Each structure stands twice: as C-alpha cells, then as structure tokens.
C-alpha cells in the first residue's frame, strides 16, 4: 500500500470534534507537542501561557514531547497523540521535517496549529510565530549600530537547525552590506552554556580586537557573556543575542549584553490555543461547513513580531 502522492498544501479532512459554540465537552483536551520540553525558556513562556489559557477556558491541556532536542522523537510523540484524538494540536515548528506528522494529524481531522517557526510544506491550519530571518536581521542591524559598521564579528548557535540557519542568513545578509564588517567565524555551541563560554574565550584569544558576538540560542547569551566578563571585556565586545530569560535580562542590565532579540512566546501559545478552540467551536463561521469548503476560520499566518530589549527598557521586563 503506497503513500499518497504529495498534493498542494491545503488542509484536508473534516474536523471531527466540532462542538457547538461555548459548550465545553468534559473530555475536550488540547495537546501541545514540542521538543526539548524541559528547556526553561519553553517552560516559562510557551508552556506557562498555554496552561494559563487552559485554566481560563476550563479545558484540559497537556504538554508532551522529548526532554532533549530531538525532532524525530517530537514527530513520534505527535503520531502517538493523534491516536488519542485530542480536540486540538499545538505544535512547535522545530523543523520542516515534521510536516509529515502534521499532515497526519490534519488528515485525522484534528485542528492543528504550528507556532514559533512555520512548517511551510505542511497542511497546518494556522501558524503563529516569528520569522527567524528577521531575528538575524535585527541582530545584524544592531551590531552594525553598536560597532559603527566596522570590526570583526563572530556568531554561534546550534548548527543544522533550520530556524537558526535562517537566522544566520539574516545576520549575514545585513553584514554583507558593510564591507568593513568582517565575519570571523560561525560556531556550534550545541545549546550549552559551558561550550558557548569556551568558544567565546577561544575566539577572544584568536581575535583580541573582536568587535562583537551574536548568539542564536537560549544558552548562547549567558555563555558568551560569562567569557567576555571573565576576559575583562564587558561592554567593549558587543553582544547581541536572543531570548529574554532572567539571566539574559540581568546581563543587559549589567551592560554585558547590549541587545536581546526577544520573541513574544506567550502570544504563540495563547493565541494558538485560542485558534484551536475557535476551530473546534466554530466561533466564527464563514460558510455552512468550513471544513467541507476547505477553509479555516482562523488566520492562516500570524507574525507576532519581535521585542527589542536594551539597557533602556530592560527594567520594565525585569519588573514583570
């Protein structure tokens, strides 16, 4: 029995578990599937908001996925969850490779929303998130501003992740425009603070005149900052990085990190879940049978935008 040939990326299948309006079924459960489920950033933003949403709406929520960054395991989790027919699926778009699993869910009639990074080849009903390319652009532009458009730049993240590679591309595209900016290296910190610190101090030894470093994963920032601090170059070597965990914010406040490109992760999952709810409850009906007419009654793609956190506004975030 051969698999179906790839068709155009439009949602198919009828949404099975529709419920009229605001009545909540007792077994109405929304499941979020991510990878690296215990990463603090995910726990404190995505998952916290999703849980709050569930409590507010009075529906069941569950958060599943492997504890390490393991895309195949995330796919496996999605596939196993499909078997238990949740009301809706909220999926962290960690890699385009999860398209197959998303399509399975859609084909099984489960409303499926992707957040964080889009999975373009999939039939997901909706996407909310940020464009990682934009994160790269933002870091690049800030770096240009901080260094006056000249000097040596290094950057690091997890190599081989699609969203991060897009971010790297954004950064490079900005730097390309400034011939006096020289990229001296791309490094793999494997999402590890100690490794990020090691790489940074080695880079500082290699390039005593380094102008700036950009980090692309949650652990890059603290690691880079540690090494720069220990080398006594805090403030001299400019750092821009992603995410706004307490330690990132503190480092901005201390003047070690100059800018954070933050994502509005709470919005991803809060509104993502709401989209699922609205699909299930057909809150906004656009036709007599939206699923049959091949449309969804929620926005298809939403860019939640980025936060720019610098020393000027960091206090507001710290006080949150």
């Amino acid at each position, binding site marked *: 029995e051969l698999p179906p040939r790839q068709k155009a990326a439009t949602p198919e299948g009828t949404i099975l578990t529709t419920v009229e309006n605001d009545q909540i079924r007792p077994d109405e459960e929304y499941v979020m599937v991510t990878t690296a489920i215990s990463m603090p950033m995910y726990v404190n933003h995505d998952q916290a908001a999703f849980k709050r949403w569930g409590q507010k709406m009075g529906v069941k929520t569950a958060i599943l996925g492997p504890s390490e960054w393991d895309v*195949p395991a995330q796919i*496996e989790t999605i596939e196993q969850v499909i*078997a238990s027919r949740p009301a809706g699926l909220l999926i962290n778009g960690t890699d385009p490779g999860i398209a197959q699993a998303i399509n399975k869910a859609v084909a099984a009639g489960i409303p499926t929303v992707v957040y964080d990074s889009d999975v373009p080849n999939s039939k997901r009903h909706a996407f909310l998130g940020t464009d990682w390319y934009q994160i790269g652009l933002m870091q690049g532009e800030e770096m240009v501003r901080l260094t006056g458009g000249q000097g040596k730049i290094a950057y690091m993240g997890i190599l081989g992740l699609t969203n991060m590679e897009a971010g790297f591309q954004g950064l490079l595209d900005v730097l390309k425009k400034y011939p006096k900016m020289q990229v001296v290296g791309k490094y793999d910190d494997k999402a590890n603070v100690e490794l990020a610190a090691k790489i940074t101090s080695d880079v500082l030894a290699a390039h005593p005149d380094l102008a700036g470093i950009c980090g692309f994963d949650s652990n890059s920032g603290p690691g880079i900052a540690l090494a720069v601090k220990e080398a006594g170059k805090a403030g001299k070597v400019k750092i821009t990085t992603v995410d706004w965990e307490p330690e990132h914010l503190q480092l901005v406040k201390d003047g070690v990190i100059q800018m954070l490109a933050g994502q509005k992760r709470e919005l991803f999952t809060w509104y993502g879940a709401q989209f699922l709810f609205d699909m299930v409850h057909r809150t906004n009906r656009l036709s007599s049978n939206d699923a049959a007419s091949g449309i969804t009654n929620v926005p298809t793609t939403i860019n939640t935008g980025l936060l720019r956190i610098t020393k000027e506004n960091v206090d507001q975030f710290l006080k949150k």
Partner: protein
Amino acid sequence: MRKLFQDRVTSLSITILLICLLASLIFPKNFPTFENLSQVLLNLSIDTIVAVGMMLLLIAGMFDLSVGSVVAFSGGLAANLMFFHQVPVPVAILAGLLSAILIGWVNGYLIAYQGVNPMIQTLAMLGIVRGGALLVAGANIQNLPYWFNAIGQARLLGIQMPVWYMLLTVAVFSVLVNRTVFFRRYYYIGGNEKAAELSGILVKRMKLYAFVLSATLAGIAGILLASRLGAAMSTLGRGLELRVITAVILGGASLQGGVGKIPGALLGALFMGLVANIMIIARISGLWQDIILGIILIAAVWLDLYLQKQSRGNSKI
C-alpha cells in the same frame, strides 16, 4: 517457572506483557488499539535496527558510539544526491549505504588492527560524521522523490513498512546469530578474546566485520528514517547511541561482552518504547518524564536481578 528468570529474553517478555496488560486496563480506550500499538512499533523500528548491530558488538565485547551520526549521514548523503544531483533513487541509497560501510570499516580497522580505544575511536567518529552530516544535509533537505519516500511510508497490512523491515532484521539476525558458525564466534570473542584467538578464530577480522555490519545497519536505519520523514536533517539520530545501548543492555547484553541475544535488542527497545508511549497516554509531561523513566528503568533491572537471585537460590559468586 524458576528457569524463566534466568534468561533476560523471557523475563523481559513477561515484563512487557504485564505492562501491556496493566496499560490496557488503565487506558482501555487509548492503549490497546491497533493504531496506537502499530505506532509504538513504528517509532522504535529505527532504533531497533541499529540495536541489532549494537547487540552483536556488545556480544563481542565492543560498542559503537558513532551510529547516531551514521544514521544522519547516510540519509543525508542519499537525500543530497537525489535532491541536488538528481541521482536515481537506488543509486543514492547505495551511496548512502556505502558511506556507512566505509565508516564502519574505518572504525573497525583502527580498533581491531591498530588497537585504538573503541570509546575514543567511535566518539571521535561520532563528531566527524556529525560534521559530515551537516555538510551533506545542511539544515534540512525536503521534497525527496516519491519512490524514496514510499520506502518508509508505504504500508503493508495497515502497518508502515519500517516495522516490517525491523521485524525482518531481528528475525534474520536472530537465526544467523543463533545458527551460523560465523556469528557464533562473537560469543567466544566476547567471552575470552585470547582463548578465542587460540581457538583459531580470526578475532581481528571478525571485529572489523562487526563494526562494518553495525554501521551498515545504522546506514539502513538512516535511509529508512529519511524516507519515513520525507526529509533529511543533520540532527537526526542525536543521542540515539546511548538510547540504543541502553535498550540493548536492558535486553540482556553486558559491556563486558559474551552475553546477549538478538531478540533482546527488540525487547529492550520495546520496553522503553512502551514506557514512553504510556507516559504520553497518561499525559505525563516535562521533567517528570525523565524522572519516571529513570525510576522505571532502575526498577525493571533491579526486579530482574531480584528474580534471578531468587530462582538461582542463595548461592554466592
């Protein structure tokens, strides 16, 4: 009854049956369904194919940490050739497998003939091949040819193909390892290398073959995984080596070598797959997953030991 617990394959089978029974009672709607169980099998098929090779290595008293990278590399290379160079599907697959064989050969040659420490050799190879996977697969290669994807996505009797490949691999190697002179030699090598050499077994050559075989199986697994996902990613198979070694040891092998049976590889993987599945069904999430899995692992091994001791009587040594 007593004898049962002396053999890990039997005792693990019983444990697995009990777990299934219990899970069926607690989650009658979600656990014992065809859909769920076939999905569990599908999810462990890749690991199990790798685990068969690892079991053989452990029987011979060795192990290979580079298999996870080989999974990523072989799939990545095949995908790269198909996508960027329009190489026909079978040729691309063959290239992926050949690359795996080559990696296994280098590991085996340096370990068996040059005496390089297996841990350092295969760990270094893990890094090298992971780097290679990044080179060939970049972030991600998608839109692979239909016939390539069909290999891993087609179904037979409603069950996706990788499950069948896995069962075939386990069955074939069970018979081979049990019944052929060639493979039985690995028990002797793992039991006492010197005595094996003096009994006329070409220990070095056999070791080389074992690494080649294990890498080849990892290569096959990599192709299957890429085909199943319809995409090649350089991060595939990360951490797979430790997962597989754990499954294999759970299935009755020992790092000291000389013991283990091929079906144990499947059972070990199945045990871990079922525990993971039940935790998903029970909606246990986040940090509790690791904690509970850890406790269950220890408890399972401890229980097995306890039953063994009981059935052996109280004899010391």
